[in-house]
């Protein structure tokens, strides 16, 4: 089997104390959507943070396009083409929407206007509110700013930590539509989701984690169809 | 305390003994007495910082308030001044307090809105004009009474030792007001608020002549220990001088100084005993729990703000007590001499160097730092003389350098604080 685009391979580690992840593997192919689901405290966010380098691994490795990036800092991974949207405080609240996008592109030295236009095309509401302070926007709009900010570095892979936490179902559907749209442009998406059913519906690949280890791994559709998964994690 | 503590204290005693042997015993006793007072202040600050992590930048203000208490308690009253405006001044003060209370009542009773703001403002304005109409003439009349030596109301003429707890009480009152306002907010707000209140206390002491004689100073305050002048004539002092081979004057001042040292040591001992008991009590454990993790302490249902207020008031009271003791040792209140450098920042250096969170550490810090503060100046002058020895006499640079030797110790203290904070943040005697 060919090496996936991005893979966190057999990751083991935690925040200093006991291990949270136990030989956990997460991977995403080019232009595909991979979703991590699982019960509370399963280590979903931890697994994603490990892939992004915010957690020191005791064992295992992270490879991007075949290159071992396990030792790199999160900032260095951004430069390598990874974008990350944290679950909370993921915007600069007192800065305008446009400035948020500019800050997202801070490491770029070239012209960023084209990328900014792409973001505005993706999230038209942000174009209207470009001069408004991001902290004054609604929850869904703020998530759009957060995703837009991460897109400004033109990442090859975008990582989203529970992007739909705390937004209404309508906004959630819209956000998922946008995420599909982003993946169609060739950007790989790795995302942690609380709303397992909806997330798996758009996922090319799904990872069900339990206690920091892989329990089920399959295509999104297959997991949705799997009676065990349905019973244990999707509420029947 | 391990063997380290007693050893350090023994070294400190040795240093003082050296001062006695090689410089003079009077100097040694003076240093000892101020060290004892500094140690008490450091104990007070240590309660706030070491027990609760509260940052009090207004130690000067609390010691000054304590000093004022000595004047108000121990000085004889001035009947002419009381006749001239005593009633007016008191009435004025009461009116001032009544105005503020009225404003608070209005604020609480009226519904929120513009009307409430206007009403509060009106109450304050009317109250202000009534108060100043009563207060102003009265204080002027008081200050006009025999201004060269009196010009103030005097005190109650009570025994001077009584002023010490009163000083503590005064400081506690001021601390309660400051703490009420600024605790429970961001932690640096308390620091800024205490900085402000200490400026104001000094301003009041300096400019409210009817109360404290202001910059004219109150001198000749009754002392709890016989003065050297009186001791010189006592036969037992004379015979003591003979047997020591000292002159009578020196003997008398050493004996008088030792009297103070005894009193101060008694107070310090009692405070340490109380602090140690408190530290080891459930209350002390709770305070440390709050200091180390405010969030979880709050989650456990502790009223953090209330606890902080209590410890802040207590610590400030101790500072006020020390301030009162200092004034009764000097026998005078000199509002002009209160400066933040000496009374606030030096105390902080003491606590940090000694060991924050450890009562014995704070006491040791008081001794060490006061000793250095007194002794670094001659050392600095000696150093400057060495540096300038090659220069021509009378050159501007030489004069300037010699004159600035006394500022060297500020620098030294600052560097000491920074070095301790960085490399030995737990101090000479660390918290257990």
């Amino acid at each position, binding site marked *: 089997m060919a090496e996936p685009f991005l893979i966190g391979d057999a990751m083991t580690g935690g925040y200093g104390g006991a291990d949270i992840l136990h030989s956990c593997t997460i991977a995403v192919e080019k232009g595909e959507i991979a979703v991590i689901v699982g019960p509370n405290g399963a280590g979903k966010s931890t697994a994603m943070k490990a892939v992004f380098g915010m957690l020191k691994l005791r064992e295992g490795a992270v490879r991007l396009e075949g290159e071992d990036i396990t030792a790199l800092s999160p900032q260095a991974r951004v430069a390598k083409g990874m974008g990350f949207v944290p679950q909370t405080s993921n915007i600069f609240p007192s800065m305008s929407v446009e400035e948020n996008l500019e800050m997202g592109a801070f490491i770029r030295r070239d012209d960023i206007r084209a990328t900014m236009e792409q973001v505005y095309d993706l999230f038209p509401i942000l174009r209207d509110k470009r001069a408004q302070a991001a902290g004054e926007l609604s929850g869904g709009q703020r998530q759009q700013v957060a995703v837009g900010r991460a897109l400004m570095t033109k990442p090859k892979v975008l990582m989203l930590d529970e992007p739909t936490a705390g937004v209404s179902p309508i906004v959630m559907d819209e956000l998922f539509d946008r995420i599909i749209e982003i993946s169609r442009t060739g950007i790989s998406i790795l995302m942690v989701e609380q709303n397992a059913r909806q997330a798996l519906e758009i996922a090319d690949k799904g990872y069900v984690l339990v206690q920091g280890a892989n329990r089920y791994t399959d295509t999104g559709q297959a997991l949705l169809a799997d009676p065990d998964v349905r019973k244990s994690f999707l509420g029947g | 305390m391990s063997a380290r503590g007693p050893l350090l204290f023994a070294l400190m005693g040795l240093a003082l003994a050296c001062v006695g042997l090689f410089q003079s015993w009077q100097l040694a006793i003076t240093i000892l007495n101020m060290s004892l007072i500094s140690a008490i202040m450091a104990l007070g600050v240590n309660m706030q910082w070491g027990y609760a992590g509260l940052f009090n930048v207004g130690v000067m203000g609390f010691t000054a308030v304590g000093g004022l208490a000595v004047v108000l308690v121990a000085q004889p009253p001035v009947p002419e001044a009381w006749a001239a405006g005593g009633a007016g001044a008191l009435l004025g003060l009461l009116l001032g307090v009544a105005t503020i209370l009225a404003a608070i009542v209005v604020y609480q009773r009226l519904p929120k809105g513009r009307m409430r703001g206007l009403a509060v403002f009106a109450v304050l304005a009317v109250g202000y004009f009534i108060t100043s109409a009563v207060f102003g003439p009265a204080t002027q009349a008081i200050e006009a009474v025999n201004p060269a030596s009196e010009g103030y109301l005097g005190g109650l003429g009570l025994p001077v030792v009584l002023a010490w707890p009163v000083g503590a009480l005064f400081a506690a009152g001021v601390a309660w007001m400051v703490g009420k306002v600024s605790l429970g907010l961001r932690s640096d707000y308390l620091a800024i608020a205490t900085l402000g209140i200490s400026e104001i206390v000094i301003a009041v002491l300096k400019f409210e002549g009817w109360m404290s004689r202001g910059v004219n100073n109150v001198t000749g305050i009754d002392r709890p220990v016989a003065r050297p002048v009186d001791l010189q004539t006592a036969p037992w002092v004379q015979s003591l001088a003979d047997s020591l081979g000292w002159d009578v004057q020196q003997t008398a001042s050493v004996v008088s100084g030792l009297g103070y040292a005894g009193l101060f040591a008694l107070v310090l001992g009692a405070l340490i005993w109380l602090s140690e008991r408190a530290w080891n009590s459930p209350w002390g454990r709770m305070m440390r729990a709050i200091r180390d993790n405010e969030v979880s302490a709050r989650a456990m249902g502790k009223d953090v703000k209330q606890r902080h207020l209590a410890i802040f008031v207590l610590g400030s009271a101790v500072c006020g007590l020390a301030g009162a003791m200092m004034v009764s040792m000097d026998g005078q209140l000199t509002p002009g001499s209160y400066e933040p450098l000496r009374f606030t920042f030096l105390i902080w250096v003491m606590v*940090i160097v000694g060991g924050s969170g450890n009562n014995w550490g704070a006491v040791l810090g008081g001794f060490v730092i006061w000793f250095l503060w007194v002794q670094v100046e001659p050392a600095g002058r000696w150093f400057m003389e060495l540096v300038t020895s090659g220069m021509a006499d009378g050159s501007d640079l030489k004069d300037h350098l010699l004159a600035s030797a006394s*500022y060297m110790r500020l620098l030294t203290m600052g*560097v000491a604080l920074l070095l301790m904070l960085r490399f030995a943040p737990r101090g000479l005697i660390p918290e257990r």
Partner: protein
Amino acid sequence: MDFLNALVSLSNFMLIPALAYGSQLALGALGITLVYSILRFAHFAHGDTMALGTAAVIGGTFALQSAGVNIAPLPTALLAVPFGVVAMVLYLLAADRLVYRYYRRVRAKPMIFVMASLGVMFVTNGITRLFMGVGETRFEDGERFVFSVREFRDFTGLAEGLALRNAQFITIVTALIVMVALFWFLNRTRAGKSMRAYSDNEDLALLSGINPERVVTITWVITAILLVLAGTLYGLDKGFRAFNYFQLLLPMFAAAILGGLGNPLGAIVGAYVVAFAEMGVTFAWRRVVSYMLPDGIEPSGMVQLLPVDYKFAVTFAILVIVLLFRPTGIFKGKVL
């Protein structure tokens, strides 16, 4: 009733001095608020660093004067400001490298930073006094007045005079220029925006590739510029005395908190509120009031709400009111 003379008298004795004082405070408070929003601690060494910076400017001024260089009618000190700025940039960066950076690295509690800044303040204070002593130093030269009382009276024919001192005029103009430049920097430049981003959300700024050490360095440089200017203008206006600069700490903090800590616009507004309140409450309104009253009625006394000695009490009262009713300040500050 003579409205014009009342206004002139008020301007001469209160409005202009308060405007100048407010401008000096504003520059100082801006520095405090910037340090606060980036390094997240109350910079207690601010007043004394202002004093040291001014001392450096005074040294430069004397050197220039003895070399015969001047820019009359402007004071020579303005020419020496760059020297003071460079000295203070180096000083503050040295303080940061030697003291603060370590505590940043170990993520110390804010109180430890405050304590460290207290130590820095001590040292700074000592250095300033080594150079300047404790006495007052005047270093204003060049023209003293933009226009004097007599010139104003001759020109307008009014009974009341109005003078605009050079130092006041320079203060107000400089403060205005500096504020505009600062806002331009913060809102329009990459470095300025990265500072705001860092202040807004430190972690996200890191993720976006903003280098925190660089942001901190820029902050100290700007702070140095602000405080040298504030200190020099204050010294030109009122003479240099090290202790007065320490005492400026309280009004500067009050201004920054009143405006909302971490909010530059708030710091400016707060500074003017504090300055006008201090001057207004301790101002003897007698002359102004007597012009405003009908002829023949004179106010008794000075019509002064509080003696000048209590100007700190006014500042403190403002601080207390803010803390009681709106701890986040007029404009929402960063943190409670």
